[in-house]
């Protein structure tokens, strides 16, 4: 094996600037042409998804009975949220166990739509229960009830969760 050839190949292999991957010429034209078509179909499917969501919402959750419950985590909160349970008027609406990815998304400012359903207009009660772990490894759980009124428009409730130092229960509910 020629040492010089080997070393030259090695230099070519390693001496490239770090940048966003520049395309190598490996069936590149075919791949790029297909890439364009893939982008088009993605766009088509996104439009279908949007229309379908709209149709689904109209069909399953009409605005006069629609209620959506969202969950977010208070800013700078480091506690590990394990699960959340939502009850409406004493009946279990939903229960969610969080994966690491979901928790990270909440901690970065994402808001989870945890429940969408239907209720009649009037006064109702929402009960929120959360289970989690504090930074020191100690388990904690909290539960709180909130009253809210459902009118003729879709109702959106935003639940903000935090550790015990946040408030009495660490659970706050806002009307949106």
């Amino acid at each position, binding site marked *: *094996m020629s*040492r010089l050839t*080997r*070393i030259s190949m*090695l*230099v070519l*292999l*390693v*001496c490239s*600037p*770090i*940048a*966003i*991957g*520049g*395309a*190598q010429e*490996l*069936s590149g034209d075919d*791949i790029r042409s*297909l*890439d364009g*078509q*893939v*982008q088009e*179909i*993605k*766009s*088509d*499917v*996104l439009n*279908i*998804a*949007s229309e*379908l*969501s*709209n*149709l*689904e919402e*109209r*069909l399953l959750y*009409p605005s*006069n*009975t629609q209620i959506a419950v*969202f969950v*977010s985590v208070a800013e700078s909160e480091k506690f590990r949220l394990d699960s959340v349970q939502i009850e409406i008027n004493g009946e279990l609406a939903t229960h969610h166990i969080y994966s690491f*990815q*979901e928790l990270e*998304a*909440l901690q*970065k*400012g*994402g*808001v*989870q*739509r945890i429940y969408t359903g239907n209720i009649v207009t009037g006064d109702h009660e929402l009960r929120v229960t959360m289970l989690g772990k504090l930074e020191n490894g100690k388990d904690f759980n909290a539960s709180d009830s909130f009253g809210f009124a459902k009118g*003729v428009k879709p109702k*959106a409730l*935003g639940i903000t969760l935090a550790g015990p130092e946040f408030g009495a229960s660490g659970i706050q509910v806002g009307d*949106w």
Partner: protein
Amino acid sequence: MSRAPLSLIGLLLFGCLATSPSQSDELKDLYFGEALYYAHQGHFFEALERLDTEVKQHDELDEPALDTLYYHIDDAEFSLGDFELRYRMHHRAGRAIKAVLEGAVDEIVRNDAAYRLARIHFQKNQMADAMRALERIDGKVPDSIRDDIEFLRANIYLAEGRPAESIDVLRKLQDSDSFGGFAAYNLGIAYLQDGQRQAALEQLERAGQIATDEPAELAIRDKSNLVLGTILLEDGEYGKSIPYLNRVRLDGPFSNQALLSSGWASMSTDSFERAVVPWNILADREATDRATQEAMLALPYAYGKLNVHGRAAIFYGRALDSFSTEVDKLNASIESIREGRFLEALIREEIRKNKDWVIRLRSLPETPETYYLMELLASHDFQTGLQNYLDLADLRRKLLAWETSFDSFDEMVDIRHAHYDPLLPDIDTLFRELDSRIRLRIEQHKMLVKRRDHMLTTPRPEFLATPEEQAILGRIEHIETQLQGSESAFAVSSLQRLRRLKGMLTWTLETKYHERLTEFDRNLRGLDHAMAVVQEQYDQYVRARQAATHSYVGYQKPIKRLRAQVRNSVTKIELLMVRQGHLLEVVAVEELIARRSRLENYGDKARFALADSYDRATQAQANMDEQ
């Protein structure tokens, strides 16, 4: 051993260039927050679907300032572009960002958009367009992307073969918190491209000694040392190259290459004992790696130089076995790919659930279709093609799931239709009756209210007379009319009595007027409440009636259209998957054939060297026996 492919470095840097999804200080729009929730998990399809719908709805509003998205609209439009970019929809991303750029927006927002557009062009290898987009940046620049812009500018110069300009930019980035390590390495490469060898070596030495705990920066530090060591090796400065090659971490992505080069550097200085150390480590590593395969051949070569021919023969034999096994594996891989199992393995659900799926591919079970997967992934085009294939598979899965929901929707509409259709005509008849009565009462109520309001300014006591008083008054007026004109004593006396009676009645009406008006007003207010209840019930009924109709009318056409669109898209996707999959298979098979032929060549060399080593070992043994 944990080992990332070379291409990982490119990905790491991409991660640095792509800004995080925007996050406003105080979130005012839950639906924007929901899109961010998906984006932060890498679910860009879902994020795009929600945000796109939300932004479109916002744009259609008559008074967008009253909408909660109004506070985030700039962020939301940027995020759309960002999500599209991350979902590899460069065309749409470019359009979204151009729209922001051309709108009447703040200087900071415009400059941010220009940077993002430049990034898209750069990723698409359109360097002139990327530079033009950067040239649009003028005035105030957001602090968070100041270094990103300059780093991108330097990379464009490098890609355009203008290292001198790149050097000027990169020098200023040496103290950057986010790009320090990358800029240090790229500056070294820029010097090299510019023909400034000494400056390049000094710069790479600096880049190779940065203090960091960040995995990405550790990798770039390794790469700096590897490049520096390789340059010195190429220039015949073997002894000098070894310390740099030895600085490369043994568990980093460049360690195999560094171990191999370190061995060759030692061989070149005739330090055969030193050469066997890195090669011994390397020869035990992943047998599919090129550097490992080369080390398997180089190690016995070094033992041969040390006159340890017996051991050389053993290692040549081991290499021969390994090459033979690898050639068998390659044959099995090629066969398996040709039978379509490669693509099946890639779209396994459990792999795609993890956001680091590219890394997880490494842990796929050892099957012929995946032996050489990571090596194939080193190619950018293969990665692009593979990602597209996986995206297509995801879309197909989604569409097929949606297809099944159309049947449920149809059934739901039919059930509602069957329930409401017979009920509604009777309800409508009853409602029409009730409606006319309610309307009458509403009119009467309005009239009373009007009368009360009028009496507040113009007192009309007779309006508040009791029915009895009204009857008496009517009777008096009737008798008065009958006695009118009569001059009899009875008539005169009766008229006097009637006047007294009327006077008494008028007295009562006048003196009790305020009391009665108050009573009337109180009663009317009670009626207001009852009327409000009636109106509320009436409105509720109208809404419920509309909801009943809306629950099953007007769905057939959209469901039918969507069903057709979904079917059509599934067909298109399946065709695209076949084409994309075929392309991937061809690329993979070509690459594996090339590898096989290299290994066969190595095998031939090992076979000859093995025979030679046996001869030499036998000769050496004979010489020893003679002595």
